[in-house]
């Protein structure tokens, strides 16, 4: 069967798009409603465990170092300043959203074979009216073969960046996001740099954004370098991704080994929400929740079981020591 030139063209575009998406973990469901859910957001924020000193640390972002400013303050003034800085901190810690990868939607607006061959270049028409959002801005392309169509996503990104540039974003993808260069940065464990720049360069529904971030999250998870992302805006996104892709074993192991039992339990709660597993009889005790999870969801992972046993023994010994100390103190008081 002979395809019309217009159909051949559409097929080429469609093929290109699908190959790009196949590289990343495609979400079977749309993660956006889960991500923007109030309860999930709260869980992610708690799990970030922000330390103000780390959130407000000096960063290589072009801000000049200046002479510090000193102020004398009363308790009340200090309280106000602290509250203001807390609001600023949560602004800085806004978690980059995880949404479904965008799909191409190219519509043919008109076919005018009469003007085909007029030029050998594509003509792009952009509506640059003030106040129109980048996502819904009207941009159309007149092909040399006379077809007038809407733009692909890459074309839209490019034209938006030309007419309404976002500072820090480049028209073409920087080479650091290509696998060979990305690997070098991942090897030197500069995860925050990659994730920050990905946030600037890509829209969250871009397949490239998903590829780069997921590659980074996987690397962090593999090397258990969660501390590198704690107190940053990317920790929530990473936990969301790990819980969604049922890949919590390493995180749980790290949590148990470093005594962050509450964090482990919260991550498991998130896991149940994201994977739509209603747990009516979710236990109150954090250790019990983790034990239950290991039993049912991880098929009794030997490392996790061993780590939890260790934790239990240590906490028991600690409790015993504490009670003994208290007893001695009480005895001493009575004797006195």
């Amino acid at each position, binding site marked *: 069967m002979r395809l019309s030139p217009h159909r051949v063209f559409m097929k080429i575009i469609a093929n290109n798009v699908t190959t790009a998406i196949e590289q990343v973990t495609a979400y079977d469901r749309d993660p956006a409603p889960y991500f923007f859910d109030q309860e999930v957001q709260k869980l992610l924020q708690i799990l970030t465990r922000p330390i103000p000193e780390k959130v407000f640390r000096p960063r290589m972002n072009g801000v000049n170092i200046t002479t510090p400013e000193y*102020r*004398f303050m009363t308790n009340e003034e200090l309280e106000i300043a602290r509250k203001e800085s807390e609001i600023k901190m949560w602004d800085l810690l806004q978690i980059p959203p995880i949404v479904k990868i965008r799909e191409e939607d190219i519509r043919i607006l008109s076919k005018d074979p009469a003007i085909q061959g007029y030029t050998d270049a594509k003509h792009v028409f952009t509506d640059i009216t003030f106040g129109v959002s980048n996502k819904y801005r009207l941009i159309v392309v007149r092909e040399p073969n006379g077809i007038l169509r809407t733009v692909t996503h890459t074309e839209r990104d490019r034209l938006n960046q030309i007419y309404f540039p976002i500072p820090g974003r480049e028209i073409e993808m920087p080479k650091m996001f290509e696998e060979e260069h990305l690997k070098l940065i991942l090897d030197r464990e500069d995860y925050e740099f990659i994730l920050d720049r990905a946030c600037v360069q890509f829209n969250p529904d871009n397949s490239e954004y998903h590829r780069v971030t997921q590659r980074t999250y996987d690397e962090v998870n593999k090397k258990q370098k969660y501390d590198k992302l704690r107190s940053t805006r990317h920790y929530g996104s990473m936990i969301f991704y790990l819980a969604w892709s049922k890949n919590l074993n390493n995180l749980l192991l790290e949590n148990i080994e470093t005594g962050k039992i509450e964090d482990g339990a919260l991550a498991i709660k998130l896991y149940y929400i994201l994977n739509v597993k209603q747990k009516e009889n979710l236990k109150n005790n954090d250790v019990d929740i983790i034990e239950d999870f290991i039993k049912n969801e991880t098929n009794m992972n030997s490392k996790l079981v061993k780590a939890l046993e260790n934790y239990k023994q240590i906490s028991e010994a600690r409790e015993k020591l504490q009670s003994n100390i208290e007893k001695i103190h009480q005895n001493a008081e009575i004797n006195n």
Partner: protein
Amino acid sequence: MSICALRCYTPFIKPIQRLFLIENRILNKTNIQNIDIWKLQTSISVVRPVSVLAKYTGKDLWKSVLSVSNAGKNRGRGKGLKRRQKDLNKGQIIGIGKLNMVWPGLNAPVMQEVNIVKPHKVSTNLDRELQSTTSTDLLKRRSRKVHPLLRGWTSAKLGGKSIGPPESSNENSLNDFETKVIQHRVVSHMTGNLGRVRVHSIFAITGNQKGLCGFSLGKASEISTALRLAKNRAGLKLMLIPIYNNHTVYHDFFSQFGSTKLFVSKKYDGYGLVCHRAIKCACEVIGIKDIYVKVEGAINYQHIIKAFILGLLRQKTHQQLAEEKQLHLVEFRNENQMYPKVIATPATVRKPAEVSSMEILDFTQYVLGGKVVLKKKKYPPFYINYNSYKIKQRKMEYLRNQDQVRIEMYAKHGELKSFLTDKYPEAKPHLWKKNRTSENEEEN
């Protein structure tokens, strides 16, 4: 004739050798055994005139060139005398010379198997090289290389020069100290006997770059003595100066000594020492790395240093300031996005009602003792309204992003090349060159 006296002077050795040769020949030819040698020698010595140089030893001659009698010295004679004795035989070794001769008995054996060796010339390159290196090496003067940063402010005077650590007699070694000369002057006073007596006055500051420092004045007729005096005395008068985070002062302050006034400003890490050169020397020695100081009033080097050290010693710690004010002292840094960091909290904090509206609450003004630094307005440069400047700006406008574009080209293609270069290779972008010839184009 005394041969001993002549031995010292190499120019006379050769004629004497020749003399003896003649003597021997006479003796051999005539074959007369009983000639009185003493007579012969005396007869020869009478022939040669006696030089002045022969009368005195080398030591005496050198002394006459290099020194003046005490009486003459007091009258100011012999000021342009040479200071040091010169080694006239430097680089010369007996038996080795420019001609590269073999002298049997001197630098070679007399007998070779059965034959007697005669004096002869040898011309081997190796020998000549050896000879040249030995003599030139000895004659070469080695200049002492001092690091440019330790040479001082100017090449002419001692100010700013580094003179090493003070000597210490006790066990506490001051080897990690460094001393810098702040001022070197020649001062004089009058005495009844000697008239105007000139003395070198050295003002030096020493320190270990960790807060310990001392300064002192040393006076002596010799520069080296004055330097040593000042240095060692400074090492005996050490003070401990508090340094904030190992790089700057605790807070801005004002300090005055005589009519020399200093406004000292605390600065951020990496700012450097922007101040009078004497204060810069002091900071380098004390261990302060970032500071701005404005000197007002008299520029007296000793007063500047004294005012600076006094000000440093009068600094208050943050805790002291907070206790004085009975308020929290909070630090805001731009690089930390103005996150309030409490650096000192007093035992009791005052309520807002207790803070009077009249008291100074501005931190800088408070630590400056109520003074406000006059900051002059910066005016735009004079050429800003010139027509030529506007024309230049207009001409340069199209170049304004060229650097950035060039970097992007290198990042994308690895060379200076745009997306149009393949289509139009004749318009390939290139770096600007003053003499751009056709050859260069071909190379590119």
